């Protein structure tokens, strides 16, 4: 086998990084323990990652719903199909926009905070201190944050979808005068619980795993310097966005 050339080295590095991240995830899962302390810490992390992300999720959800309705109402009205706006809105949200945007927003708000926190814990020897007290940092620090992220993202997707629909109602019903019975009735008649809403929620679970996995991984592997932690937080957002978009394509293709 020939040695890697400079052109193939970045790709080799990416493959190596992915392998390391997978091994890290495997290690965390194999060491999981569910004691009273762990459950309490997980609930605390759900608060930090979830409740504190609510402002950005609710705000973005509302405006995404508003703009999406505005654009689709305008386009559909040209074909005399303005009543189908709510169907288009609901399908776009449930199938794609809700899970994808929530996961990316989660990476930007909670993911970066998780990465920075773990990176700083390494820089200030807090992870070493745990290790020296015979407390496994993977179990005490990583596990609660990983599980909290997995639970939080699907819950945030539900909230994002609900507020985006509210944005749609504000534009279509209150501003453009669409009958609210028509608006909700069309959604009820066309959106399937399993195929549309269910598949979207499955994606949300997948994206939750990816977003929290990458956040804890980049924090864990951050260099213990200011620059190292800054780089790790940036990598969390970039890697999560890329993997979520790629995974979205794969899952969409599989679910259709």
């Amino acid at each position, binding site marked *: 086998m020939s040695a890697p050339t400079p052109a193939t080295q970045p790709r080799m590095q990416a493959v190596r990084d992915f392998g390391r991240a997978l091994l890290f995830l495997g290690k965390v899962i194999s060491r999981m323990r569910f004691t009273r*302390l762990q459950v309490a810490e997980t609930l605390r992390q759900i608060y930090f990652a979830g409740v504190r992300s609510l402002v950005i999720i609710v705000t973005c959800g509302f405006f995404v719903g508003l703009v999406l309705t505005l654009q689709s109402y305008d386009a559909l009205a040209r074909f005399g199909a303005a009543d189908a706006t709510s169907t288009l809105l609901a399908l776009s949200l449930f199938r794609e926009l809700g899970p994808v945007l929530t996961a990316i927003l989660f990476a930007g708000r909670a993911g970066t905070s998780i990465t920075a926190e773990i990176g700083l814990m390494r820089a200030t020897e807090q992870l070493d201190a745990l290790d020296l*007290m015979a407390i496994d940092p993977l179990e005490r620090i990583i596990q609660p944050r990983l599980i909290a992220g997995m639970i939080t993202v699907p819950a945030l997707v539900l909230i994002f979808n609900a507020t985006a629909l509210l944005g749609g109602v504000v534009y279509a019903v209150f501003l453009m005068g669409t009958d609210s019975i028509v608006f909700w009735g069309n959604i009820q008649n066309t959106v399937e619980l399993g195929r549309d809403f269910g598949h979207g929620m499955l994606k949300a679970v997948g994206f939750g795993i990816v977003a929290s996995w990458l956040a804890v991984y980049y924090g864990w592997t951050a260099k213990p310097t200011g620059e190292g932690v800054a780089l790790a937080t940036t990598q969390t957002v970039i890697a999560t966005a890329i993997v979520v978009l790629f995974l979205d394509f794969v899952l969409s293709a599989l679910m259709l």
Partner: protein
Amino acid sequence: MLESTDRAAAITLNKVTVRLGGRLVLEDLSLDIPRGKVTAVMGPSGAGKTTILRLITRQIRPETGTVRVGETQVNQLKGRELGRFRRNLGVLLQNGALFTDLTCFDNVALPLREHTDLPETLIRRLVLIKLQTVGLRGAAEMYPRELSGGMNRRIAMARAMALDPDIMLYDEPFAGLDPISLGVSLRLIREINDAQDTTSVVITHDVDEVARLADHCHIIADRQLIASGSPAELAESDHELIRQFMGGHPDGPVPFHYPAPDLAEQMLAGQAR
């Protein structure tokens, strides 16, 4: 050079060689830490003092040689055995390494909650006793960010002795302390050692403090153990490097300047840097 198999020693490093990132840090080093005493491991910056602490705690393994703590071969430990071994060590890291999201009380209670099944009422009493020992019972509900660096280190000391370990390891416990905190830390290390009959290892380069505190000293330089003895014996030594170190002279066997090309040549070379 010392080559000991002394079973009375609490900690024994035997012909240990350590290489970190390709750089040789310790070479064929042997030393004993006597049981029940306060032993200082001293040496210039970068001499490998903290590496010795990391060998004892099994954070790193030697390339060759053995590390023994009591009857335990530390370099062979892993998994649960390593966990059990570490529960018997109290380590004070350089910056205290307290958990900033926990109060001082919860920091000290953490090892008790993780490793014992004691009821919360008993844990509360034990934590308050430990905090009382370091004089910070009144700061129990405060967060580390609300306390000074010296106080943080005292809380970390209380946490390190929470499980009443047989061995206490202190990494640069005096660095950056004001004279009052320094005096308090010296007294605490001595009191903890004597009251709990522990073996204490203090990694430091503070010569004056060691003279006031330690029963025994090891000086590390050039990847080797160059001297051992009581602080008084070392102060009397005529070894050139020991005299430079104990006297704090800027030049000697350990040069003040990092190796560099000739100053005049570099200044006149006309390069940007």
